[in-house]
Each structure stands twice: as C-alpha cells, then as structure tokens.
C-alpha cells in the first residue's frame, strides 16, 4: 500500500495539512502571465520559488516555461528586494527583451513588505523600462488563498492594462479561468463558429502546447497581445468563467471602464456549456448556428446511449473550485453521485454551491473547502466510490483502493493529452465522458466473471 499509514478513522486536524489539494499563489500568477503574448513572468522572491513553479508547469505541459526571479539572498531579505528587482528589470529587457514583464510576489517579498507599484515607478523614472514595453505586477502572498487566487490576481493585473478610448470595439471579453491551452483554443473555436468577436485573456494556447520544429522561440506565437489587453476597456461586455479565477478581473473592468460583466460557471459539461453559449448569444446579439446544436446533440446522445453505466455511480472529486462546481453539475446531470468533494482552496461559498447542486441526489455528500487529499482518502475508506477524478496525486489513492480513476485538473504529471484535447464545451464534454466511460468499462471488463464477460457494452 502506497498510503499505508492513512487510517480509516477520521480525527480532527487543526494545524497539519497532509497531501494538499492546492498549492501556492505564485504558480497561478505564473501560469496566467504565460497567457500574455511576449511576456516573461517574474517571481519576486528567492530563486527556489521560481524554480519550483517552472518545474511543476514544465512537468505538466512538457514544454519550456521561461520565467525569471529576483534571486533574493539573506541581504535582500533584510534590506528589501528593490535593488534586486531594479537590476532584474534592466537585465531582462537587455537579455530577453520581452514585451511585458509580469511580476508576482512571494511569501518572502510580501512578508518583508516590498512595494511593487513603487518599485515599478522607480524603474520607469530611472529609464529601465524601454519605450513600448510594460511591467505589470500582482500581489500573490503564498500564505493566503491558493494557486487559484494567484491566477485570479494576475488576471486582475492584466485587466489593469485596459484603457477606454470612448469608442467601443464591438468585442466580448472572455476570461476563461484556469483551463488548459487546448480548452482556450476550444473556446476560440466555439466563439468563431458563433461569430462573436472576442478578446480571450489569458490565452495560453500556442504558448504551452507548441510544436517541435527545430526552432526555439522564447516567446511563442500565442498569448493575448498587449493591444488586445488595452482594448478590453472598450469591449461591450465581459464573460467571466468561474467565480474564483475570473470574476474579480471582470468586476474591475466593469468598475474602471463600465464594461458590464456576467460571471458564469466554467463551461465543463452539458448545462454549464448551455449557459455559456446562451450568454454569448445574448451579449453579442447573434443566433446560434446549427453546428453548435449538433455538437450539443452528440453529447446528449452519448449520455443517453451509455446512461446505464453512469447511473448511480458514486464519485470522489478533488481539484479547484470553479472546475469542481462545473464537474459536479455535469455528473449530477448524468445521474451520477458525486459524494466526496474536496478543494484545498478556501471559501465557504464553494461548500454552499456544491450542496445546492447535490441536494436532490438523495444521499449524504461530504464537501470541504480548504481540505486535503488525506481527508478525501479517509472519506473514501469510510464510504467507497466507483470513480475518482482529480490530478495525478490521486493515483496513489486509486491504486491503494483500486478505484477507476480519471486524471483531470492540475497537475497531470504522468499522462498526455490535456495540452491538446479540450474538456470544455460540448466536444470537451464528449471527451470527458469518453474518459469516464473508458475507466468504468475497463473495470467492468476486468472484474466480470468469465460467464458474464460481454463483447458488446
């Protein structure tokens, strides 16, 4: 047993986190910043933070992840990191020449109270920021929230680049939240099909799912451009996909530039996608093409075709709030029973929302925000499930408890596909369903006694 020391009996813990279901803010800020075209994320702290975040993102994407660091030593920690930051800005523009440096803080620079806006001002006044180049920043203390909060904070900093010219651009801002590059690509495909002009930010497609061609581009083709980010202030509206990752930036755009926003769930699964498409229709004043209805019908078709294998199956879920809310709704809509749900990210709203979504399921649901995977494992030991959905760390639970398991979330360190195949939208719903059915039916085939082993399922 890999997690042999995990007892079935649950005791209350107030101080010890075991097998976390979250990580810290800066990595989220780094991921979001990679969705700006020509941007170098910069970690203002000691160099280990940057090394760890780059390693984690690299392992997840199998792609280069460039980011720089202020490389604090003991001296900088005592006297403040301003000198390191100024030197870094100068070196970065000289050696790498990005269009944007997106700085995020760390627990180190936050604890000593470095003031990034003031440092930026000083860099600008000393001529360290070349003409036409930008430095943006987000405060991302690791001791508050989670990686999701850090993502949201950097997206807010991106929205901070918005300008209003007074002339509307006819576009809709879409803030997709923490989804894979493939998902962002899929959002763009859907909006193009519908005929809505959009500004998607951040957009990591083309950045973290690039080709191998014998050339290395430190700043790949993808990413939301600075011009687009500036233009978000002139858009006719914003759709924020997910309360945790995207809503704050959307509300800022509303407040600062009078761009009205609506906050939706992330479009994973049938119903959340329905609402997303319908919102696009309303905000852009377009009618939805038949192709979209066709894709929707295919998803409904597969649910009905395979419903017998889904009905009543108990599921344990772990991941981030926005994703889990959509996934829970999707599972419930297929008459499955998500009974254990954990996120490491804090927020009582999450528990409330999950309880609402599962209230008609007719069984007890364990849900916890700011929980961990040790607790999830204990819940599973007390009430076993038929399916486990979560990031790669779940494989230790899946193997110990022998549970069919679908990898979905961050990080995925041991399988491929998340970079290239979306799980958003109706097409993405088909892929999710295919993955779920795949593991459930593999299990059925594995466990069926010979007389019951069947060719047609």
């Amino acid at each position, binding site marked *: 047993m*890999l*997690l*042999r*020391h995990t007892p079935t009996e649950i*005791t209350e813990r*107030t*101080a*010890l*986190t075991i*097998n*976390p279901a*979250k990580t*810290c803010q800066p990595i989220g800020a780094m991921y979001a910043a990679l969705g700006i075209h020509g941007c170098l994320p910069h970690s203002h*702290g*000691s*160099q*280990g*933070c940057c*090394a*760890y975040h780059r*390693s984690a993102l*690299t*392992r997840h994407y199998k*792609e280069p992840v*460039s980011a*720089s*660091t*202020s*490389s*604090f*030593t*003991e*001296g*900088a920690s005592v006297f403040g990191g301003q000198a390191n*930051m100024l*030197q870094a800005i*100068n*070196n970065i523009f*000289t*050696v790498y020449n990005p269009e944007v440096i997106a700085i995020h803080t*760390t*627990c*180190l620079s936050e*604890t*000593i109270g470095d003031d990034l806006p003031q440092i930026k001002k000083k860099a600008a006044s000393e001529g360290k920021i070349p003409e036409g180049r930008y430095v943006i920043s987000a405060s991302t*203390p*690791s*001791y*508050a929230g*989670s990686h999701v909060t850090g993502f949201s904070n950097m997206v807010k900093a991106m929205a901070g680049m918005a300008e209003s010219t007074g002339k509307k651009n006819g576009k809709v801002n879409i803030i997709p939240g923490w989804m894979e590059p493939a998902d962002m690509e899929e959002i763009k495909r859907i909006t193009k099909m519908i005929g809505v002009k959009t500004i998607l930010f951040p957009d990591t497609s083309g950045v973290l799912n*690039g080709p*191998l*061609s*014998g050339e*290395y*581009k*430190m700043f790949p083709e993808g990413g939301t451009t600075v011009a687009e980010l500036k233009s978000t202030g002139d858009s006719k509206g914003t759709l924020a996909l997910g309360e945790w990752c995207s809503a704050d930036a959307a509300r800022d755009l509303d407040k600062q530039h009078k761009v009205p926003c609506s906050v939706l769930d992330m479009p994973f699964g049938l119903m959340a996608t329905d609402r997303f498409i319908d919102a696009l229709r309303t905000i852009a004043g377009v009618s939805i093409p038949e192709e979209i209805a066709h894709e929707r019908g295919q998803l409904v078709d597969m649910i009905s075709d395979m419903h017998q294998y889904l009905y009543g199956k108990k599921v344990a879920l772990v991941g981030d709030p926005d994703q889990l809310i959509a996934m829970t709704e999707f599972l419930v809509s297929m008459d499955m029973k998500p009974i254990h749900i954990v996120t*490491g990210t804090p927020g009582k709203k999450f528990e409330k929302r999950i309880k609402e979504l599962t209230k008609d399921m007719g069984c007890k649901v364990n849900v916890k925000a700011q929980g961990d995977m040790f607790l999830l494992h204990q819940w599973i030991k007390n009430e076993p499930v038929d399916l486990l959905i979560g990031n790669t*760390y779940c494989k230790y639970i899946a193997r110990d408890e022998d549970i069919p398991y679908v990898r979905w979330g961050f990080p995925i*360190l041991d399988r491929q596909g998340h970079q290239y195949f979306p799980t958003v939208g109706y097409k993405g719903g088909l892929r999710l369903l295919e993955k779920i059915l795949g593991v459930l039916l593999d299990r059925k085939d594995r466990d069926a006694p010979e007389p019951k082993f069947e060719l047609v399922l």
Partner: protein
Amino acid sequence: MATAAKKKLVQWGPAEVKSALLEKYPPKVARKRAKQIMINEAQQNETPELTANVRTIPGIITMRGCTYAGCKGVIMGPTRDIVNLVHGPIGCSFYAWLTRRNQTDAGPDGENYMNYCFSTDMQEQDIIFGGEKKLAAAIQEAYDLFHPKSIAVFATCPVGLIGDDIHTVSKNMKEKFGDCNVYAFSCEGYKGVSQSAGHHIANNQVFRHLVGQNDEVKPGKYKINLLGEYNIGGDGFEIDRIFQKCGITCISTFSGNSTYDQFASSHTADLNAVMCHRSINYVADMMETKYGIPWIKVNFIGAKATAKSLRKIAEYFGEKALIDRVEKVIAEEMPEVEAALAEITPRTEGKTAMMFVGGSRAHHYKELFDELKMKTISAGYEFGHQDDYEGRQVLPNIQLDADSRNIEELEVEPDKTRFKPRKSDKEMKALEKAGYKFKHYDGLAADMDKGTLIIDDLNQYEAEKLVELMKLDIFCAGIKEKYSIQKLGVPMKQLHSYDSGGPYAGFQGAINFYKEIDRLVNSKVWGFMKAPWQKNPELSASYVWE
C-alpha cells in the same frame, strides 16, 4: 550560404564561444559571468581560477533552486521513516512532494512516509502573530496519527523572517513525546546562493541530531557508509546489490532509501565512501573528527568507475578475502557491460555531449560518456563550489563571502568515548605511501579535456547560445531546461531525476545508460523537424492526378 555559415560556427574556438556568450549582457553582468566561464587548462592550481558558489544575477534565468530544496528536497527527502514536516505556506511542501524520483523500499517494518506531503500551511494570521503554536500543534497531530520514530521540521522563507523559533518548539515536543526525535532545519530559501547551502544545513542537523544515536553494533564485515547517494531511479538499489555480492556491509546510505536508524548507527561504520562530494562532504569531515572514520571519494557512475571504487574500498580494508571477492564480482559483471558497449559504441562514438547539472553529477556522468566514446565538450555545475571544479587542494585559498559565512560551521571535537581511529597512523601512512588517497578529490576540471569550456551556473540564454554555436548531440541538465533544448532539435537528458528510467549507477546501471543514450542520440524523431514542403519550398509544375 546558410550551410557555410553553420560550418564556420562549428569551428569556433573556446575563446570565441566565450565572448559570444557574453556579448549581449550589460557590462556588469558580463564581467561577473566572465569569471564563471573557464577555458579548461586542467592545471590543478592551488588557487582557484573559476569563480563559483556566488550569487545568481537577478533577472537572469537560472537553473538554480533554493536552500530549502537542497535541504528538504535533496538530503532529507529520500528518508522513508521520518515525517518531514514543512513549516510554511503550502507551496514549498507541495513542490517537493514525490517530484525527485527517489525510490524507496518500505522494508519489513513497512514504515514509509515518502508518498505523503506534510505542511503547516501557514496563513496570514500565522505570519502576523507567529506560527510557533501552529507548528507545535501540527507536530502533535503528526505524532498522534502516525507515531513515527522521528519528525523533522523544515523552515521556509517567511519562518525565518517572522522569527519562529522552530528549534525550541521541536525540542519541547521531543521532550514531551519521549519516544520520537524531533528536530528542525533552518533552511529558509533565501539563505546561501543555491541549493548547496541547504545541503550544508542538512548535514549539520543530521550530524547533530541523528548520527550517533544508536551504538548497537550491526552484524557484518567491511562496514561502510555510502554518503551522497540519493537512489534516484533506483541507483542505490543497484549499488546495494553490488555491495552484497562483494560482502561489503553498508551501514547507512545518506540518504537514498534510508531510515532513521541508518543515520543513527552510521558512526559504527569503518569507512565513509563519498559519492556526491558537494552535498555531503561536510558530514564525512565531521564524522572523521568526532568518530575517527576516514573518508574516500568514490563514484559508482560508470562501469570502470564502479570497479575502481570497489577496489578502493577493498584496498582500504586490505584483506585478501575481500580483495579477491571484489575482483571476482568485477570479472562476473564486466562481460555484460563490454558486450553492451561493443554493440552500442559504433553508434555513439565521436558524438558530443554537454552537462550542466548538480554539484558532482556533471563530473560523474562524464565517465559514462567516455565509455560510450562520446566527447564532453562543455560542462559545469548548477551549485558546485570551487573545490568541485578544481580539486580540494584549492580549499585553503577559497575566499568565503558573506553568503557562505551565513551558513553555520559546526565545531566538532573527538567524542570522548566513541572516537576510535579505524586504522593506526602507521597503517594510514602505509596506505598513503602506496598511493592511496583519503579526503581527496581532483574535481571536474582535471578530467575534462584541455580547451573545453567549464561554465558555472549556466543560464537559459547561455545554454541556448551554446547549443546554437557548438552543435552538440546531447545536452544534459534538469527538467526546466529540457524542452527549450529539445525545441532546438537536440535531445536532452535529465541528470537530476533522469526523466524516467534508471538506475544508471553500478554495472547494470551503466548498461541502462548506454541504451538510453543510444536511444536518445539515434532516435528517428530528430529527423522529423521539417515537413517535406518545408524542406523543398519551391512550387513544382501542377500535378496531374491520374
């Protein structure tokens, strides 16, 4: 035209490559980096020529990590029956959770916490009001849940800044429990200039709190400790197999697949064999002073190096039975190695490699490339010191800077009751007279060809430039560097965690490595970079479909 230009670049000499690496930098950066790039003369000077173990330049994309990574991630990470509790915000513990491919075998006692990740997950109020209470509560909860032999506490950046006294908290909890050794590491990420400081801090605390805790004499002959072996990809398992075959008893490994008791009993061994000089030489020195255990440098990366290291261990004990048995084992193991080489070297001979990794690995792995008849044209360390490059004879002349002085040096004295010279002065002298070298390490430069480039703390920009200028066949570094190199169409092998696969140590490991390098440098995929229409972009006459 393009081909002619490329040809010219290949012919660039080391001095030209060096100046090409520096030309884009701001003057201050260029001056600093120039001192960290050396055209090798392999002179074995008393005064170090290359600058190393100095601060990373802010904004320059470095390969380096932090002190915490060196302490918790590298040294203490591979121990299986100690609960490694990270005191800090969640990230540091999360990122060090199972990401280094340290293999472990839970053994008959079954204790194994390596698959777990423990953290106090400090929140804003802990930063403001202090985290000591939360730490004490977390230690208590870990004790109540698991009843481990030992709990190790690791500090992350904010802990040092807010002044949490993790040592006193640990001491109090240890006293409270009575049957669980609790101790702490002040390994805040900002200390020192790289992971290296974390190794030193780990060495100090392991020596202070673990080594010497169990005087019980273990059975077996020819007792050694293997220091600086982390069982990445199962390296330690292969070395253990060879030791067992030779009849050598390994009391403890620091720290691959290690247990609390191994550390606690390590002072009962009669020889310390040091693999990774950079990460662990401190403990070897301290054990020599306190317990009288001599140390030698060994290397089990490379079949010839493995044979050489085994002979060195046998020669130390000096008994014919052991010497003969070691020779027999080498004779048994080598035919398979030679057969593999005979098959593979025709496909690898003359190819070129670069290695920028670790604080000893770039040196160790050169052995394997030599065996494959590949040429290492440039190498360097991520966090090595000057003695790792130019040999321990430079030690007296290394000038300690403020960053190094910040790392505690333990004052060690001979133990009143347990200091026991393993060999008499006369025996030691006789061995030395016969050419046996204790506490000796020549460093990387001595083994590199003259005129090759030795580069300390290589960064992403220089790596890309080197690949562009020197047209090599394989590049070795870590995960962060992997894909930017591969995008250029050059295979990249991780030598920190090996990507996948291993072991690469010992005889079987060498064979695995030959096969792996053969796979990488001869993979068909590197020929698929361009599509047919990109190779021949001219439009031909219209195609007539029949």
